[in-house]
């Protein structure tokens, strides 16, 4: 038997499937309706003789309005249903497990904050929301897990994210869904959904590795970022303690939340986001860090706490 849907393995999959089947029903209904009417009329009104004439065509405003308004109402129903699902699925739950993805021609680098790395494989625990923060090292890719009904483009120079909550253990396809060059169709892999215990064991197993935050701290020290970004706020640059997730005022007056995107922008184009009260003297680190290292630095900044800062400017 040919399957008609992939496994429904995430918390949103059933919702998406229901809407899909409703749409399929509407499509089949109207297609069959039109074809049937055509067929019926073809038979009933088949021309009998060459000089046969049709009766006069009357316009009917009632009909025109009906077949304008009824399809419009159907469209409204579909739009509201689909948008509601979409908006609800757009924001990841607060307590999501975060995992980082870097796409490059032609493989997926996956980085768990605790340290383990994978290539073309993603291990996740079942029943727990997982948020993926993703970027590309080169061209536009797209991270697609059909079984979870999630997909998001992966872009160079910025972060995109998606989230899912797996509802059953198993092994599911991972595809790149945006053409990215020669081996686009080989940029595929597997998602392994495990029970929470198995997942913890998997994280701990394998070679011991530093967490992303620890690797970030090493980079931070190696590049002497602390020379300006003094922790107690007495340096030339803002203290980074507790800065992650807080809204900060830029020199331009604009308020921005300190998130992954802002930190990356500060590293790459520092003069575009000086914080209010600080001179724009940070050098650019364009070309100095890989995407992985940037994510590690971000993880380190995150680890410096997001409680209220107790000192500094």
């Amino acid at each position, binding site marked *: 038997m040919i399957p008609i*849907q992939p496994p429904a393995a995430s918390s949103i999959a059933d919702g998406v499937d229901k809407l899909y089947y409703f749409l399929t029903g509407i499509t089949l209904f109207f297609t069959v309706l039109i074809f049937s009417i055509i067929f019926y009329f073809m038979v009933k009104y088949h021309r009998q003789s060459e000089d046969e004439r049709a009766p006069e065509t009357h316009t009917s405003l009632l009909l025109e309005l009906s077949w304008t308004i009824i399809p419009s109402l159907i469209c409204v129903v579909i739009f509201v249903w689909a948008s509601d699902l979409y908006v609800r699925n757009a924001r990841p739950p607060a307590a999501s497990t975060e995992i980082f993805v870097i796409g490059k021609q032609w493989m997926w680098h996956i980085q768990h904050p605790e340290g383990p790395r994978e290539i073309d494989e993603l291990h996740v625990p079942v029943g727990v929301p997982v948020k993926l923060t993703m970027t590309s090292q080169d061209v536009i890719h797209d991270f697609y897990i059909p079984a979870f009904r999630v997909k998001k483009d992966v872009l160079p120079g910025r972060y995109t994210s998606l989230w899912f909550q797996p509802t059953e253990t198993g092994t599911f396809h991972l595809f790149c869904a945006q053409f990215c060059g020669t081996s686009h169709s080989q940029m595929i892999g597997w998602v392994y959904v495990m029970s929470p215990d198995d997942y913890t064991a998997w994280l701990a197993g394998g070679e011991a590795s530093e967490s992303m935050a620890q690797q970030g701290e090493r980079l931070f020290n190696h590049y002497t970022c602390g020379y300006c970004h003094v922790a107690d706020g007495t340096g030339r640059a803002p203290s980074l303690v507790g800065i992650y997730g807080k809204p900060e005022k830029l020199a331009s007056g604009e308020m921005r939340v300190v998130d992954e995107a802002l930190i990356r922008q500060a590293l790459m184009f520092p003069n575009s986001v000086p914080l209010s009260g600080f001179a724009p003297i940070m050098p650019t680190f364009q070309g100095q860090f890989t995407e992985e290292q940037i994510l590690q630095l971000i993880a380190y900044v995150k680890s410096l706490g997001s409680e209220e800062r107790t000192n500094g400017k």
Partner: protein
Amino acid sequence: MSTALADIHEVPAESRVNYLNAAYGIKSWLLTVDHKRIGLLYLASITLMFFVGGTAAVLMRMNLIEPQGALLEPETYNKMFSTHGIIMVFFFLVPSIPATLGNFLIPIMIGARDVAFPKLNLMSWYLFITGSTFALYAVLTGGVDTGWTFYTPYSSTYAHTNVIAAALGVFIAGFSSILTGLNFVVTIHKMRAPGMTWFRLPLFIWAMYATSVIFVLGTPVIAVTLLLLGVERLLHVGIFDPAIGGDPLLFQHLFWFYSHPAVYIMILPGMGVISELITAFTRKKIFGYTFVAFSSMGIAVISFVVWGHHMFVTGQSVYAGLVFSVLSFLVAIPSAIKVFNWTATLYRGSISYQAPMLYALGFMGLFTMGGLTGLFLASLAVDVHLNGTYFIVAHFHYIMVGGAVMAYLGGIHYWWPKITGRLYPDLWARFAALVIFVGFNLTFFPQFMLGYLGMPRRYAIYPAEFQVLNVMSSAGASILGVGYLIPLVYLIWSVRYGPPAGPNPWGAKGLEWETPSPPPTENFEVPPVVTEDAYNYPTREVARG
């Protein structure tokens, strides 16, 4: 309508001067300014391009019989799908009905001698040929593998193929479109015969007018976008390179700002043809003329504000998604209005089933399905799952092939007697229409299923579990291919051996049927004066009650 109809005897075409025999020799064709000859020049060129693009498709589908690729290396496969898309979109579908049937028919249908700017018309064809030459050069000397969408930064920085040659070909062909659209807008505004008011125009003219508005407004944007891409690729200045502050998504916005209206360029003329075919083969006035006419204009206008639905998964804001989604639903409504009006026209009509009508009826069903699958894609939550998969491929092929190509073939068959003065064998034509219908559905219906199962598009190699549906699709493609070859044979045959057609072999209404087949160079021996509405077929009394 007063014409010299009474003076036209059933004289064989050869013994009367018409646009085909008015002058002989290659110069009389290559330097013609007769819109009818220019239409035929386009017919030859786009038929060639259709078979080039079709060959690429055949190679693709043959490759996809096996999960690991039966025929081509992935790199070659990537070049094949790119070639197929670029050639079919820019060098076949966009010009197809407008440049062949539009050029031939618009002046005749409005009672004019020619288009407003005949020399510009010829220049349009030469631009098309120049663009096609660059595109074919790109294809034959190494190929291009960016897809017809040329997304950056792959196309601007990473691709090692003939991107610039291909983009240049599209750029030049774009000017062909722009000038054709300009010509049609001015012709329809200024050169209608006395009595031919806007609301007496055939619906084909309304559809072509709406299409020409899109040509004029949309095509320049892709021209400048491809120019920016070329500059980026040549000078490496980074307009779309994020490493130096460029935005790869800006390319997508600029590209789709044209390319979404472009898909309406590809379907609106087909809808115009269908209006003509339905009325001719039911011998009835169309139901809801004003609604059908305005729906064409409505589609043209709304088409410019929905481009973001191609970018729902690019990380676009939720608000942008909602706006583009609701507008995308809105653009579906005028198309639905047309389908219902065509169906209502069939009611109590006097229906005959010659090949053009079969194509028209096939269009109505397949376009309905293709259009409704568009609603899946306008639905944000579902598009997240379906974007970038075979569902999209199936959706647009239902509209482009099940819709536009079938309308094109229906129109070619319908007006063939007028264009050539010959009748083609209708039995063969009906057979071919049936083969095409069956082959088409077998090719593309499985692709909807593949899409929902998760098979991404543009994959040279795929997981084995998708093989059955792929083999079905490839089997359908081989039937479809045969179906397209059949008309090539009998249509060419008919030019020499087909029985002569009179001025009105279908008994249809329209100025084009009131002049000889083939028409004289100046279209009408006596310029017509219009005194009645379009499709003013004689009616019979209907018993009350």
